[in-house]
């Protein structure tokens, strides 16, 4: 089999080895902002499962918990049941609109600061700097032969990578079970196999994606850059090298000899050296740029050193770039942030959020779902009456047992009974006790006089017989002979 390097076409190799990216350490307001975001996101990710929340005796006391076995999702005071999954759908829609909002206003801010791939890559690059040293030392070590020092450093580095990756994978499973219990079970070998498999898979992916693939994920694998390109317009903020101000480039010395002939860029390459995806922003906007603004910090400090105004590389919209190029002054940033498009997105986003909050506040915790049994659609009884069968699903979502009453309306002469009862015990309404935090399923038999419309709509209602009488009702059909298709 040919080695990849032998797969040469007439233009050279078809496959390119990764060029190492060794971003240089940089300081500045954007870098500090990025540190802060990293601290917050990591703290949320690692810390959330450990927050406790007292819900009483029938429920877990973990604040955020995805309880797959019992099919419940707990988030602080909110408890979501599978049939309420539309809340999750709502959150996804909000996330989608939120992405439109953020992207149309501030471009790829998600990519630059909050994306997990960005955060963990940043973390691993920081580990590189701690162990191997800054950019130049890293490059030297990468090209150095395998000496004892290099072996020790590499071993140490990969060990730290693995620790971080393991920690990351381990934190994930804590969202799916009681964190302290699971930690104990995990280390004593008593956790479910799926826990170990999940941790192993996430450790491996974090190790590979954060430790090695890094910017290749952003450039080759991730769909967001492609999607975001479509969501941005000429008023979205991009990290832009202002070539009309920077070009032609020249060193400080050369510029001093020939004042007025050169632009502000001193061709120091600092913007390239700090870039975590290893691109040169001076070549113009490109898909590899995650708009992390580290090059802005780098260039601003260079400009400060040579005594030129900051912002040779800066956040700038395509419109502003055109204005400035033509010698005008760009409008203030709030004009960019608050414009009809972003306000519309924000309005939509907020409306969905408020609607969800409202329904969350209004929802009852006693819920009824009725299913009309279709085979048979109706049963002819010997005295001429007609019986229809239904399946009741009663959800008691409260954490206490409840007594409820099922009543009918709109079906004259009807009587009902449920499993274990019989027609002799039929009444107009019936009472049942419901176990806490459970779905109770029961068959409901309804008998009504044989004379009547072939298909009749009526209502089944449930209400609790305690301090909170709110319940639920459903309109459903009663069928008599003559309704066969």
């Amino acid at each position, binding site marked *: *089999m040919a080695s*990849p390097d032998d*797969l040469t*076409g007439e*233009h*050279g*190799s*078809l*496959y*390119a*080895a*990764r060029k190492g990216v060794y971003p240089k350490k940089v300081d500045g307001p954007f870098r500090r902002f990025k540190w802060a975001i990293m601290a917050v996101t990591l703290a949320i990710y690692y810390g959330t499962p450990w927050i406790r929340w007292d819900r009483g005796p029938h429920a877990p006391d973990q604040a955020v918990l995805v309880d797959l076995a019992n099919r419940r999702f707990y988030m602080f005071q909110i408890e979501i049941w599978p049939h309420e999954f539309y809340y999750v759908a709502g959150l996804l829609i909000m996330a989608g609109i939120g992405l439109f909002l953020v992207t149309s206003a501030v471009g790829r801010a998600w990519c630059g600061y909050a994306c997990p791939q960005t955060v963990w890559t940043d973390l691993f690059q920081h580990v590189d700097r701690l162990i191997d040293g800054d950019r130049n030392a890293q490059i030297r070590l990468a090209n150095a032969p395998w000496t004892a020092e290099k072996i020790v450093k590499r071993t140490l580095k990969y060990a730290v990578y693995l620790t971080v990756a393991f920690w990351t994978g381990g934190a994930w499973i804590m969202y799916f079970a009681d964190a302290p219990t699971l930690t104990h079970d995990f280390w004593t070998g008593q956790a479910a196999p799926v826990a170990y498999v999940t941790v192993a898979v996430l450790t491996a992916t974090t190790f590979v994606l954060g430790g090695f*693939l890094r910017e*290749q994920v952003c450039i*080759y694998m991730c769909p967001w850059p492609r999607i975001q390109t479509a969501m941005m317009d000429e008023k979205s903020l991009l990290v832009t090298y202002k070539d009309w101000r920077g070009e032609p480039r020249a060193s400080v010395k050369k510029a001093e000899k020939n004042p007025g002939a050169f632009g502000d860029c001193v061709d120091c390459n600092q913007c390239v050296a700090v870039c975590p995806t290893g691109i040169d922003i001076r*070549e113009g906007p490109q898909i590899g740029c995650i708009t992390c603004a580290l090059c802005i910090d780098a260039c601003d400090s260079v400009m400060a050193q040579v005594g030129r105004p900051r912002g040779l590389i800066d956040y700038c919209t395509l419109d502003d770039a055109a204005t400035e190029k033509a010698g005008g002054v760009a409008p203030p940033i709030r004009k960019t942030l608050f414009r009809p498009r972003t306000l519309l997105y924000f309005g939509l986003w907020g409306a969905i959020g408020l609607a969800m909050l409202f329904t969350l506040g209004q929802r009852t915790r006693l819920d009824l779902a009725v299913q009309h*049994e*279709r*085979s*048979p659609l109706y*049963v*002819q*009884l*010997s*005295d*001429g009456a007609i*019986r229809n*069968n239904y399946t009741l699903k009663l959800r008691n979502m409260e954490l206490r047992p409840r007594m409820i009453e099922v009543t009918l309306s709109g079906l004259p002469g009807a009587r009902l009974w449920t*499993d*274990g009862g*019989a*027609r002799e015990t039929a009444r107009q309404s019936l009472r049942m006790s419901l176990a806490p935090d459970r779905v109770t399923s029961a*068959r409901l*038999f309804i008998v009504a006089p*044989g004379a009547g419309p072939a298909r009749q709509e009526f209502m089944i209602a449930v209400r609790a017989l305690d301090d909170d009488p709110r319940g639920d009702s459903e309109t459903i059909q009663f069928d008599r002979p003559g309704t066969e298709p």
Partner: protein
Amino acid sequence: MADHKRIDEVTGTHTSGHEWDGIEELDTPMPRWWLWSLYATIVWGIVYVILYPAWPMIHGATEGVLGWSSRGQLEQEMQADAARRAPVMNAIAATSIADLPAKPELMQAAVQGGAAAFRVHCVQCHGAGGAGVKKLYPSLTDDDWLWGGDLATIEYTITHGIRNPDHKATRTSQMPAFGRDGILEPTQIADVVSFVRTISHQEKRSASSARGAVLFEANCAVCHGSTGNGGREVGAPKLNDAIWLYGGDRASITATVTQPRNGVMPRWNSRLDPGTIKMLAAYVYSLGGGEKAPAPALAAAAAEGPGADGQP
């Protein structure tokens, strides 16, 4: 087109020579890890072919060194499932059917198991959900039972079937073919039909029904009772209610009296184990028409012992 290959100044990459309306395509090299991923999938494929059945041959496929097969896996899963269900199945088998309702969890399991067995063995005649088929097979969901609708009676009916010629314990009775065998004249049959339709409130009293009443008392009342109340000892249907297995209009009743159907149901003890039959009975009972008290018919049959044919 091939002539337009050149090096793009901005990226320093070759172009592929393809051009559309002035837009050219770069021939950017693929990342090398991508190639390695491809090789990895090839290795995976080879390993898979060695380990698992893969290569189709004339008789079946290559076996694979692990000896795995989907059939074998199914077998294992079935066994594991049977082992998992064994405690409940044993408990059901050990409980008499009359005691089942006192153990709600066992009863529930039996109803579910019975529903599954019903879908396999019974729906062909009695329909999904036990609704029956009009003019052919009785509905099992209503409150009208030919032989009785309590748990033990249903279990007995399923076990021994109805009118199985070669089985002693089967339920048997035969309605004479009054018309075909010339026991009654067609006009007499018409009168009997009038009477039957009168007691089931489908027709008003008439001279015909008055004549029919006399004929009914002489020919039919012995099984169906003087008032048409039916007789479960012999599976004689009630004639004074709203349920008609073979139809309640004049033509249908006339056909039945002339040439009765005497429907047959297989006995299931030759094909199903007692536990499954018990579960089937529980399921049928749960359909909504089950009766609490055992039918007197069963008591009588039990007193006479199996093999009583119940013929008058």
